[in-house]
């Protein structure tokens, strides 16, 4: 599952994911983008509110629904995109 969301919400999202029981997640910086709202870029910004981050979360399929719900409870009213794709995790014993 990959979620692109506004930076000020990062902690709220990761807290929600943790509560929903994910074993881990990874946050990637995003340097710019465009969507319905506007085109933006991180260069020169000083406001942590200006940017987005991408949160990637590998999880078991049966946990997915509760995760999506958790993610949605945070993302819902905000700018952002949630997508899910199949991935096989090699060290699966962890999950």
């Amino acid at each position, binding site marked *: 599952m990959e979620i692109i969301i506004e930076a000020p*919400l990062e902690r709220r999202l990761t807290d929600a994911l943790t509560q929903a029981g994910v074993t881990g997640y990874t946050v990637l910086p995003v340097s710019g983008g465009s969507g319905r709202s*506007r085109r933006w870029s991180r260069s*020169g*910004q*000083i*406001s942590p*509110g200006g940017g987005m981050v991408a949160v990637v979360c590998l999880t078991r399929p049966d946990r997915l629904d509760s995760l999506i719900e958790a993610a949605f409870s945070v993302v819902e009213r*905000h700018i952002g995109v949630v997508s899910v794709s199949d991935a096989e995790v090699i060290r699966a014993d962890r999950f």
Partner: protein
Amino acid sequence: MAEVLSLAVDNLISPIILSFVLGLSAAFLRSQLSFPEAVARGLSIYLLFAIGFKGGAGVAEHGIDLGLVATLGAAIVLSFGLPFIAYALLGALTRFNTVEKAAVAAHYGSISIVTFVAATSVLEGRGLAYEGYMVAAAAAMEAPAIMSALWIIARSGSGSAAATGLYREVLLNGSIVLLVGSFLIGMITGEKGMETVAAFIVSPFQGVLCLFLLDMGLVAGRSLRDNPAVLGAGGILFGLLMPLLGSAFGLLAAQLVGLSSGGTALLMTLAASASYIAVPAAMRVALPEARPSVYLTLSLGVTFPFNLAVGIPIYTAAATMIAGGQS
């Protein structure tokens, strides 16, 4: 009047303003000049630390007096009150919806620390002293306006504001903590501390401010360029009138508290300025339906350049005329 004009011209051809103009022009010419985010944030950390420390060292030198408490009180009242005035003015001038008006109002109750810093450097250029604790007043004005905006929303019933943990986040946001913290460090270590760090925070200050304003010009220019129509004539008018209105309240408050002419100019500047760091981040959390393009373009693209180029000289001239005898 002649003095205002001379002040204004002097101000306009200072390296600081011209750097901002350079950034603005580069953005409009679609130059790819840009500052890495980390550099821009590094510069802002420097400026906050330096201005806080200088303020604290100033207080250490002159001693704390009742003025500090009174000024903080006045600052907080201003920050709580100005959003209501902004909200009313927005109602008269624009067609933004309630949530957006409240979000914009929060920005104008809060402050822009770079505008404050630019004003202190104009004062220093003129040899006007100001109370060191004005920095504390700046910090005190960052947050209250957000509460007023949320209160407006709650009363109007239009959409709930998600505020869990928000107050804590806002009160402890990076710039407030850095500003108040370095203010305290300056106050505790005083003159002796100042000596050890002056070569870092005093001498190169103006130059760093130039680079920072160059970056601000780029960001402001791009936000104006990318969102030309979002404000409408009414919105732009608001962005020019509100600082003047705000500064008038700042002048009133400064008179009540009995600030020096330098301090008066700074309180006017604070009241006139609009946030573009702390409040936008809070609004993304609390009022996500409000469009960032509206409030960022207004505060960064309209009011910030207005204050920098025209506002500060006006406030300084007004302050020296009215509060001149007191300092």
